């Protein structure tokens, strides 16, 4: 479990030093830094600059990066990583995990002399750029990686051991990851735990299996019809819950990040969905960090988190903009969240 997270010069955070708990619910208005906070954990858990391009793609940028050969263009690819786009000062992300120890990622441009680039093309020219380096320091061991350009294409060199961090958002609900996670569970005779979790909330689901549909392996549900139905066709809510449950069950002692957890969940199911995710996370020793805009979700989650046995392991995190325009995160204890939401106080 990540006990502490420190960010420097990352996106909207000039400096953040925050203690985390087993269960963390993140709220805040748009632009306050919620997504940046989640992304910091995901990037830090990665092992190559490639992870940044995944996030960039989720933020709406094209997967295809066309490199025209200017230093400005190269640096513009990464500038949103840096606080107020100040690329002179490096980014530092650091976590302390009670099981996996400390993990730090330094992101900075190398010395300009380090790298020379000759682009071959219709109008060849030569110039020098400073390649961006992602340096992971894991329990004191340095792993240098970088994103360089070869023959007009990005190439990533070096790799660090990745941390068990899964990140789910509206555009990252990968069928492949679900299939892979389910297969892993099934191989260890643990697929029933997923079925039980789903059926407890959605009793129409009586079984889950992997089936080939048009040549692709797909999770399919037995819902009592004469044919199994791909989960994605069944319901957005069931599909998402299955994804989150798989993320927890197949990622023991890991970290699961869920952006806008309420998305697709029928309001009456919210307490059951959250109760089930919490129970699975406790059993698998998984840390949950979820963001939400939904007051109904907060009202559903608060009494569960305020239960005596987990209240000390739970907190609300509210991303706010301080008077200087910096993103900060305020921590609120679970009993205060429960007291507030039971009185209809606005806490978001």
């Amino acid at each position, binding site marked *: 479990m990540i006990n502490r997270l420190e960010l420097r010069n990352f996106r909207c955070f000039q400096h953040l030093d925050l203690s985390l708990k087993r269960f963390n619910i993140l709220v805040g208005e748009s632009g306050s830094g919620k997504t940046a906070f989640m992304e910091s954990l995901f990037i830090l858990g990665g092992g190559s600059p490639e992870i940044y391009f995944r996030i960039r793609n989720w933020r709406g940028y094209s997967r295809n990066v066309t490199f025209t050969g200017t230093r400005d263009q190269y640096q513009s690819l990464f500038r949103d990583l840096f606080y107020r786009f100040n690329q002179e000062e490096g980014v530092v992300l650091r976590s302390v995990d009670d099981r996996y120890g400390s993990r730090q990622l330094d992101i900075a441009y190398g010395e300009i002399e380090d790298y020379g680039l000759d682009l071959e093309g219709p109008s060849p020219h030569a110039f020098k750029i400073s390649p961006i380096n992602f340096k992971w320091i894991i329990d004191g061991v340095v792993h240098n990686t970088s994103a360089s350009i070869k023959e007009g294409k990005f190439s990533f060199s070096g790799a660090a051991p990745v941390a068990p961090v899964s990140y789910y958002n509206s555009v990252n609900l990968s069928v492949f990851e679900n299939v892979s996670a389910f297969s892993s569970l099934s191989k260890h005779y643990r697929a029933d735990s997923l079925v039980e979790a789903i059926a407890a909330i959605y009793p129409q689901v009586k079984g889950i299996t992997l089936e080939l549909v048009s040549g692709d392996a797909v999770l399919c549900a037995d819902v009592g019809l004469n044919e199994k139905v791909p989960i994605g066709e069944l319901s957005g809510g069931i599909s998402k819950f299955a994804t989150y449950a798989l993320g927890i069950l197949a990622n023991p002692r890991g970290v699961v990040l869920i952006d806008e957890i309420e998305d697709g969940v029928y309001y009456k199911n919210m307490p059951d969905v959250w109760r089930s995710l919490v129970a699975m996370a406790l059993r698998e020793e998984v840390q949950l960090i979820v963001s939400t805009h939904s*007051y109904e979700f907060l009202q559903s989650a608060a009494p569960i988190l305020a239960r005596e046995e987990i209240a000390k392991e739970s907190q*609300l995190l*509210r991303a*706010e903009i301080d008077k200087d325009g910096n993103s900060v995160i305020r921590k*609120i*204890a679970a*009993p*205060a*969240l429960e*007291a*507030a*939401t*039971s*009185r*209809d*106080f*606005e*806490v*978001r």
Partner: protein
Amino acid sequence: MPGQTIGPYLILGEGNRDKLFIENLCQNRTITDLTVDFVKGNDNFGDHLTGLTAVPDYPTCRAILLVSDIDESAADSFKKIKVQIGDAGFPVPTSPLSMAEKAGFPSLAVLMIPHPVPATDPRGSLETLITPAIESLFAKQAGCVSTMLKCAGVMSWGKKSSQDKARVRCLTSTVCEDNPMIGLHLCFDPKKHLINLGHNCLDEVALVLRHFPAWSRSAHKEWADWRRINKV
């Protein structure tokens, strides 16, 4: 829709009628800069305070005044509130109208009503406080209600606060032909002319409310000291 009004100087009453009384008194006396709310019963001061810490505007709150009924024992009622304040982690005042402070929290004081405590009987509630302000407008009906309460045995009830509640209920019923069931929370509406909010029985409460922001910012933690020094 969820929401919570919080301001630099927050007054918390027990119920909605306390809130409406304080708001209308402030309006009548041109007392500004206060935010008034209620906690839904005197068992809920602690949970309400705990919940406030989760509200985005909570850091803007500088001082909180809890307003609660004495009921049958000032000591017991105050102790009950003190325990709740302490459990919520807030600064705990040593006595009513004493300002408590603690780093990272708003200053906090408690006003027990009736205020000032009547010399004849140190018990009562909001109804005890406002009875003279109603009776002054309806002297004839007040006499009849007194007679009726005696005759009906209400004045032999053990609870002073219950006696005063019965008195106010009877009095407002006798003067509200259109709605004899009128609730106390509706009586404070100035358009109804049921209570004289300018009556001198409310002067001391109004004084505390008017000067609460200045008192909370001062070095004098006891209201009596602050008042003496500032010649109020």
